[in-house]
């Protein structure tokens, strides 16, 4: 998979599972930040991240170990898509 393909899948998951409006997805890019408390981010909290992890595991066929500290990977769609690519290999 390319990073662009992963990004598109992530955007679809964010709409489908995190209930964002589809019009928001069109605006999302690799630079889009995710966590609540970051200016201009999507404002995701811990519950959103759990949902997204579960969705990512299913969509990409990866395993996300919750014991891992994932804060850095969930900073932006760029870091997140790289994270997915590293797991898919």
């Amino acid at each position, binding site marked *: 998979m390319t990073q662009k393909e992963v990004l598109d899948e992530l955007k679809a998951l964010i709409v489908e599972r995190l209930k964002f409006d589809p019009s928001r997805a069109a605006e999302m890019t690799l630079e889009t930040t995710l966590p609540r408390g970051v200016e201009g981010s999507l404002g995701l*909290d*811990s*519950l959103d991240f*759990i949902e997204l992890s*579960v969705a990512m595991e299913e969509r990409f066929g990866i395993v996300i170990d*919750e*014991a891992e500290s994932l804060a850095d990977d969930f900073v932006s769609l760029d870091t997140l898509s790289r994270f997915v690519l590293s797991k898919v290999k």
Partner: protein
Amino acid sequence: MTRVVVSGLGVVSPYGAGVKTFWAGLSTGECAIRPLTIIDTEGFRSRIAAEVPADVIGGLGVSRRRSRADRLALAAAREALADADLSPRDRTDMALIVGAVGGGMLEGESWYWDEALQPGSSPKIGALRSILPTSHSEVIGWRLGLGGPRETVVMACASGAASIAFGADLIRSGATPLALAGGVDAITRICFMGFNALKLLDPEPCRPFDRGRRGMSIGEAAAFLVLEDAEHCRSRGGRALGQLLGAGVTTDAHHVTAPHPEGEGMIRAMREALAAAGRAPGDIGYVNAHGTGTPQNDRVEALAMARVFGEGRVLVSSTKSLVGHTMAAAGSVEAAATLLSLQHGLIPPTANLRDPDPDVPFDCVAQTARPVEVDAALSNSFGFGGQNVSLIFGR
């Protein structure tokens, strides 16, 4: 001011039926968390729970036609009333407050599963009549002849404790001299699947306050307390097992599942309970913690307890390590455990605690019960939605 005593107790737990069986399990530190049998757990990360054994359910003396949760509730309520030795006249004055979440959902799910496969097929539609949490108060109130106000509180994992706080409020307000208060929850697929999905369950029996703790274990139970105006109890020749000295009921208003990171609401609940009880933190010898075994709860609860009591200034243990997290029943099951520990001068242990978390600055009574005479003890219950209840019991 009106004093509220506990004059009756009834428990159905994963150990079996009855308060004696419950205390025997707690005092020997026996962990009742085992592989689940009543629902299919294939494909789930955690497949264990503290289930009430089938032969125990069968021996409760309640019709099989009733939902599992109704059976647990009715049996525990019956025991509490018998324990209090109340007259039929007393029962007609008695309020009933039930903490519940799952209701008859286990049976409702069976019907729903059948319907999903083949619509219109299932004969089990009758199960829908007792699916809601109100079912328990309807059944208990009717079968046991209770004529006072009735209420069903749904406050997630704090329901069982909240019911006790509200029962005491009713008595203090003079609305009634007697209240049967407690909670019940049977294992349901939705609860099991949900906590699995949130990754809050430990695949092994939970280890509250342990450095390596990984999550909760689910349980099921019912526990009811007879709360009574102390003067009323005395004049009818009843006997008091202990007193409910005070209760705090607060809300974090922070997040739907995660607690406030500094335990702000927990601290307020404990302090409100202390103020209501007219006690100082130093008067409390034991805290029966909410202690689910999730990394987050235990950390935040320990922080909150340290703020209220001071580090290491009170003994702490988690009943959930023994009988699992019994959901809506937890608050009342643990209230019962707290009362019994005061009565017997013995603090039940935290099972499975082998490597205490250094960030938890308390002696959590690892693995073996501790004989200690305590005058007053506090029980915490914290639920989804930031619902916090702290109850203080005295001898």
